[in-house]
């Protein structure tokens, strides 16, 4: 892939699938192993779900911007929506006994479980989620990563 690729996507369920597919393809091209590709694609899927559902609330005039950047040591994925900004304080811990049987609220937890770094920046004009996975060993670009 080029250093950075960026996509502007509609606030639809199809966008969630497309985001996951792009993440799978790019992570595979960069030489991540099968398990890491699954982790990256799932984290991106969950980020896209947040953007489409909770951020933009399916609004047709609002877009999701998804970008992938290959730096010297990392794959950096950014997902931006145009919603009102997520309330981080209002997200319950899905592992707490009282929340275990809730049917939602695991998306951000899964992102944090699967990626090396997750940064979430809410604002009044939208939320930006940055997902970072360190590149280990031989990458598809032929460079040795910093193990």
């Amino acid at each position: 892939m080029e250093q950075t690729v960026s996509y502007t996507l509609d606030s639809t369920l199809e966008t969630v699938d497309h985001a996951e597919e792009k993440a799978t393809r790019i992570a595979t091209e960069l030489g991540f192993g099968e398990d890491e590709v699954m982790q990256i694609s799932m984290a991106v899927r969950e980020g896209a779900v947040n953007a489409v559902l909770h951020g933009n609330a399916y609004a047709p005039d609002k877009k999701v911007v998804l970008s992938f950047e290959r730096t010297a040591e990392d794959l950096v994925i950014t997902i931006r929506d145009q919603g009102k900004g997520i309330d981080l304080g209002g997200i319950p811990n899905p592992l707490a006994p009282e929340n275990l049987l809730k049917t939602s609220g695991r998306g951000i937890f899964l992102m944090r479980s699967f990626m090396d770094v997750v940064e979430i920046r809410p604002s009044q004009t939208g939320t930006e989620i940055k997902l970072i996975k360190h590149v280990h060993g031989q990458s598809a670009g032929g460079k040795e990563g910093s193990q």
Partner: protein
Amino acid sequence: MSMKLSVRQVDGVTIVDCSGRITLGEGSVMMRDTVRDLLAKGNKKIVLNLGEVNYIDSSGIGELVSAFTTTKNQGGELKLLHLTKKVHDLLQITKLYTVFDVKDDEAAAVKGFK
């Protein structure tokens, strides 16, 4: 690959063979509708065979939880059968593995109902 479900009966137990993806949208809705339909028809001993489920997201996990609690609230019992490694790992990290009654053997799952 989208989700496919097929229902069969074994010794009074309803086994739902699931394959494909349980994800936000069609897969989750199909799972929800199938379990609700079974319960409405009085089938309260349910096994979800997830042996051919190759992908599940947080919405899919939520549907499994919903199926479990809905069945339990209606006096029934729901077990999970043949978890793939991906689904097994997801249930482990979400601490749901010990919440569900998970079986590796269909006959044992069927016999395990009260």
